[in-house]
């Protein structure tokens, strides 16, 4: 397999143009009904996430409760998925039984990814066996930066196989890839190797998702779709906290990929505090009062 791997040819990225284009999406002003629809759509795309060393079963249960019913009495939709460490998968699975909410798990020695391929695939299998519907894997940035692209291709393929029926999201950790060109190349390698989703960040490295980086990845998805007709999903993660930011991202998705991607099947936000911000905005639209997150549960 190693020998047959050819590094994909990707166009180089015009950094200035990407940043300018990304900045323009922030100038859209979305009001009233469109805003409410946008906020609800954003809520339905959230992978409600807790990835802390101090996670407890109780915290995961609480998060699942919030995923099922974001705010009592409001018509905010349920989120797309709950994203946890592999050990917490059985708990999340139990709590989310009977709902359409998926359980996502970060396997492959998240967030560093520094382990042998065997250990990483084993962890993926264990997570899937425990009930994970979606696996978020991290690529080996060290190998990527050293130019061993075939190893990246190999590991993604191996993990995709280990996933079985579960969906695979490939985390590029763009904050460590250093250039837009690297992001573009890594996205293409991940897509070619069979990623269902490509994802910006673990959330453990700063910067997490930024709009220019997300735009580069969206354009890779677009070009791939034009060439092959195959859709790939996108998940920015890390640092998206405000409802307004989420609306900017949705504008970017709509104008780069089109309406087909404006669905939790093809676009996700990896976030925890975003949901409360969306709820506060929805409550503001409903009651006409600026809301306070003191009335909302933690997330």
């Amino acid at each position, binding site marked *: 397999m190693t020998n047959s791997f050819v590094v994909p040819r990707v166009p180089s990225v015009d950094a200035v143009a990407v940043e300018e284009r990304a900045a323009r999406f922030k100038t859209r002003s979305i009001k009233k009904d469109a805003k409410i629809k946008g906020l609800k759509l954003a809520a339905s795309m959230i992978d409600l996430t807790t990835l802390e060393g101090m996670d407890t079963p109780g915290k995961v249960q609480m998060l699942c409760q919030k995923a099922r019913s974001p705010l009592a009495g409001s018509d905010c939709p349920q989120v797309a998925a709950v994203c946890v460490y592999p050990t917490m998968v059985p708990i999340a699975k139990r709590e989310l039984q009977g709902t359409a909410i998926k359980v996502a798990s970060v396997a492959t020695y998240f967030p560093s990814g520094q382990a042998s391929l065997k250990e990483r695939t084993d962890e993926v299998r264990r997570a899937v066996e425990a009930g994970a519907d979606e696996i978020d894997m991290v690529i080996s940035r060290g190998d990527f930066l050293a130019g061993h692209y075939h190893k990246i291709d190999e590991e993604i393929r191996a993990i995709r196989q280990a996933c079985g029926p579960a969906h695979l999201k490939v985390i590029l950790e763009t904050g460590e890839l250093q250039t837009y060109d690297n992001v573009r190349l890594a996205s293409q390698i991940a897509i070619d190797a069979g990623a269902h989703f490509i994802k910006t960040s673990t959330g453990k490295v700063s910067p997490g998702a930024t709009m220019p980086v997300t735009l580069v990845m969206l354009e890779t998805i677009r070009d791939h779709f034009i060439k092959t007709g195959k859709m790939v999903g996108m998940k920015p993660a890390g640092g998206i906290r405000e409802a307004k930011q989420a609306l900017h991202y949705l504008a970017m998705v709509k104008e780069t990929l089109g309406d087909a991607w404006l669905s939790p099947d093809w676009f996700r936000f990896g976030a925890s505090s975003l949901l409360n911000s969306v709820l506060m905005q929805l409550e503001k639209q409903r009651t*006409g*009062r*600026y*809301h*306070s*997150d*003191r*009335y909302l549960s933690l997330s």
Partner: protein
Amino acid sequence: MAPSNSPRLRVLKTFKLYIGGAFPRTESGRFLQEHNPKGQLVANFCRASRKDLRNSVVAARKAQAGWAGRTPFNRAQILYRMAEVLESRRESFEHALTERAGIKGAAAQAQVNAAIDRLVWYAGWADKFIQIMGTTNPVASPHFNITSPEPTGVVTAFAPRNAPLLGLITAIAPIIVSGNALVLVVENDHPSIAIDLAEVLHCSDLPGGVVNILTGQRDELIEHAAKHMDIDAIAAFDATDDERRLIAVEAAESVKRTHFFETPAADNWADVSAQSPYHILPFVEFKTAWHPIESSAATSAKY
């Protein structure tokens, strides 16, 4: 070439807002003009919008826990520091009071004096009001029962309309001394002096966001402030009956504390009656703790 006898145009300062330790322009881009008693234009100032109010509340909420978490002694130091900085800039304030508000010589001096003294006076209360207003309560069980005043949280105050400097100090000091964060809405004849004061606060070690100052029209902001779910208390000077009713009704939704100050006549602001530890009271919550104790000699219970 410009004719040599062309008059120089004065550059009028446009006073900005004070939000979260920064001096932003109003998000709305609107401004108002300030005139002195002779009717001459003396300054432009920002007309704060609903969004500015919201931003201030966010900044205040962010700053409040840290401010309340400081030791009372440290809050005293910072209030005292505000007095020091005001003292060092007294001439500039006397000048501003004269030029912009038409308060002349001795009266301007007296107002600055009183403002400085009042800050020092409230600084002294920072680590004392808890002792005076807290209690230990006799209870019929083996517990120490202690009641202690704690800051309420984020307070929005509508500043008095007269006494441009002293009135503001009288509004600010008792609210922040206990550890509250403040959004002060200033509508009076000389709002620019409030922003001068913000510059004093800014270089007095007061953490950004503890005091936020919005100039503008209170009509425009009062309803939004009363409705805002993240404000814990509202104080208003010079509130009309309609304003009181509006605040009371809208504040009920989030169970805000409301307090209406009786405004002294302009001449009486400097009077000691305008300052009182009881002005700290409306902006604290009393918390009671039950602490179990061993039965003492006074109880004859046998186990």
